[in-house]
């Protein structure tokens, strides 16, 4: 009897011991999904396996960063959310926000935390973070995208232009582009003065022409921070002027061409003298792809002297999905990596511009010419609207731009059509 009791207890201990051991050793794992490859410079640090080491040690958790294919990342996130098996932290493009918010997929940042963040960061980061009345859907990553005019200084010299003076107004811009354009003996353009993006995803087409649309006074939607409702403001004199500008450069000045579809690649290859896109991309690619290129960076031109320049701001965002299994720890990890100390440390290490006001006063950012150049552009930056119908608005506007520049529709007809489609998208999304 005694022996059988001992045996029973021993067996029970043996049976339970693996479970006890596992329970003792088990660590919560926080998963973070980010885009693979060099889609954004801001994701580079996730490849560092020790990135979260301090946080992991302090909180007895493991943070696992998983790279996803960029092209199918939205679909994967959505499918995972539907399957209730999503990551705890999502590192997403801000332009994806409306789609995710339409599905009520993201947790907002707690009001107190949002208030503290908005008070501590520089104005451009505040602009990117605040979706109206201090509402935040995540923390923008450092090294934000700001669209700027970049020009080839050697081409400027060759065309008799001052390489340190970029065009400031649309009239100057057209004049410069004409002077910079080169042709072969048959009259075919071999180098454009200004390269335009007119193919690919309509969003990309709109992003690259945002400066002209907004600079001329048009807007994609009247209230950029409203999730639902509102109306499209693209079929306006400003919208028409923005489309006409490039149409005239194509047909009248012949200083640009549909045959140079990737402005950044054309600029880096030396077959375009000016282009307007994410400056961070040129900075990252130029040393490898065009080491001898001497380039300048400035605000996009304005319709006429005295007008205020407008350019596009974009960023990647740390956010927490509603279906996350470890929400509290996910927010803690996000707050840790987005602290002022980590911002300084990571920006210094990865040669990016910081977000906290306090870090802008420190070296190397204080004396870095590129960072200081960016600082001149930031005050003119605007982010994309957050309306739930944004995808439809962008499709409509992108389609209008393509139709006009491809000579399939007049400016008036294309914009009237785009306005109708955009308003339908806004109304449909609000249902």
């Amino acid at each position, binding site marked *: 009897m005694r022996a059988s009791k001992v045996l029973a207890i021993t067996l029970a201990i043996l049976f339970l011991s693996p479970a006890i051991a596992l329970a003792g050793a088990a660590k919560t794992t926080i998963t973070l999904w980010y885009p693979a490859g060099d889609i954004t410079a801001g994701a580079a640090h996730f490849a560092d396996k020790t990135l979260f080491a301090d946080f992991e040690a302090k909180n007895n958790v493991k943070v696992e960063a998983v790279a996803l294919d960029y092209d199918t990342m939205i679909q994967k996130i*959505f499918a995972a*959310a539907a399957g209730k098996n999503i990551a705890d932290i999502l590192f997403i493009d801000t332009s994806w926000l409306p789609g995710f918010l*339409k599905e*009520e*997929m993201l947790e907002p940042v707690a009001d107190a935390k949002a208030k503290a963040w908005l008070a501590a960061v520089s104005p451009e980061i505040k602009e990117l973070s605040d979706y109206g009345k201090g509402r935040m859907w995540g923390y923008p990553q450092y090294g934000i995208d700001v669209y700027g005019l970049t020009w080839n200084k050697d081409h400027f010299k060759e065309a008799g232009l001052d390489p340190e003076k970029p065009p400031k107004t649309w009239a100057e811009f057209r004049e410069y582009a004409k002077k910079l354009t080169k042709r072969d003996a048959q009259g075919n353009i071999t180098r454009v003065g200004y390269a335009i993006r007119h193919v690919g995803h309509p969003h990309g087409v709109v992003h690259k022409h945002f400066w002209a649309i907004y600079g001329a006074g048009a807007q994609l939607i009247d209230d950029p921070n409203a999730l639902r409702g509102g109306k499209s403001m693209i079929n306006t004199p400003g919208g028409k002027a923005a489309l006409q500008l490039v149409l005239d450069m194509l047909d009248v000045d012949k200083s640009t061409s*549909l*045959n140079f579809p990737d402005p950044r690649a054309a600029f880096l290859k030396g*077959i375009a003298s000016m282009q307007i896109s994410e400056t961070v991309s040129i900075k990252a690619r130029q040393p490898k792809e065009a080491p001898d290129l001497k380039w300048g960076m400035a605000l996009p031109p304005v319709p006429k002297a005295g007008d205020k320049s407008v350019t596009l701001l974009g960023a990647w965002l740390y956010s927490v999905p509603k279906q996350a299994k470890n929400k509290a720890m996910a927010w803690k990890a996000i707050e840790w990596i987005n602290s002022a100390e980590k911002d300084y440390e990571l920006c210094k290490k990865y040669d990016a511009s910081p977000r906290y006001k306090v870090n802008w006063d420190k070296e190397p950012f204080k004396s870095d010419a590129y960072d200081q150049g960016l600082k001149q552009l930031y005050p003119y930056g605007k982010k994309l609207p957050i309306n739930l119908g944004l995808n439809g608005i962008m499709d409509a506007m992108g*389609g209008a731009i393509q139709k006009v520049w491809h000579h399939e529709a007049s400016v008036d007809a294309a914009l009237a059509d785009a306005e109708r489609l955009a308003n339908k998208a806004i109304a449909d999304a609000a249902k």
Partner: protein
Amino acid sequence: MGSHANASGRHVLARFRARRILHAYLFIAPVIVLFGIFRVVPAIQTLLYSFYKVELLRGRFTFIGLDNFRTLLTDEIFQKAAVNTLVYVASIVPISAALGLILAVLFNTRFRFKEFFKAVYFAPMVTSTVAAAVVWWWMYNPQFGIFNVLLKLVGLPEQPWLMSSHMALPSIIIFSIWKTLGYNMIIYLAGLQAIPQQFYEAATIDGAGAIKRFWRISVPLLAPTTTFILIYNGILAFQVFDQVFVLTGGGPANSTNVVVLDLYRQAFERYNFGYAAAEAMVLFVFILGVTLLQYVYSKRFEVAY
């Protein structure tokens, strides 16, 4: 006694047969189950979704009857995608079949390096569509692409290819013909080699020339092969996606948007799963209709030899 023995024998036979049937079903069960899970259930689900407003993340399904289909009728982008798809199918299916037949006739004769050239023509079929499309994207590049270099060499004007709303769809069709040609050639070649030689010999004795033999013997006797090629290519062409996604993304200005791409966008960019399901059902009806039409019509050309 005799009838009892007969009854018992029948019973044994019936049991044996039942067991054999059971075994047969057990052997095919894995395939049937997997086919059911991955093909039949999603198809039924798609049909059901097409009558609902589907909000997957909220787990909300609102029955809206035929609303999704009604909206499709007035959706200009879908209409454009449907027309583009029809143009694509109507171009690629006959052209690819005709070129495949011509190549098969050429390869049905003896010449040096025949097998090598056959492999060359068949290679695109076994190449990943996405990988091939990326290469063709560069070949179509207005500045650096081989096509414009060749045009320039022969003194013709350079073309914008994928950059033009007017030329983008034909450019995709050219790529797709290149991709499917080899498969059609091989199928036609098999069909040609199955035709008994005595038909050709008899026709030759009767004085028929090569062209007459081709039109009077090869083409009619290849009718079942042609039917197969038209149906197979037609079904695939209606579902075109990869090359459009890679080469143009549906642009410029929706000039190459096709039904499957639009469906994908509705589902995964706009999260309108019910609407996307309705598009899928319309596409299914189209494919079914055209396939049935081809099948019924081709019955008239059935041959036996």
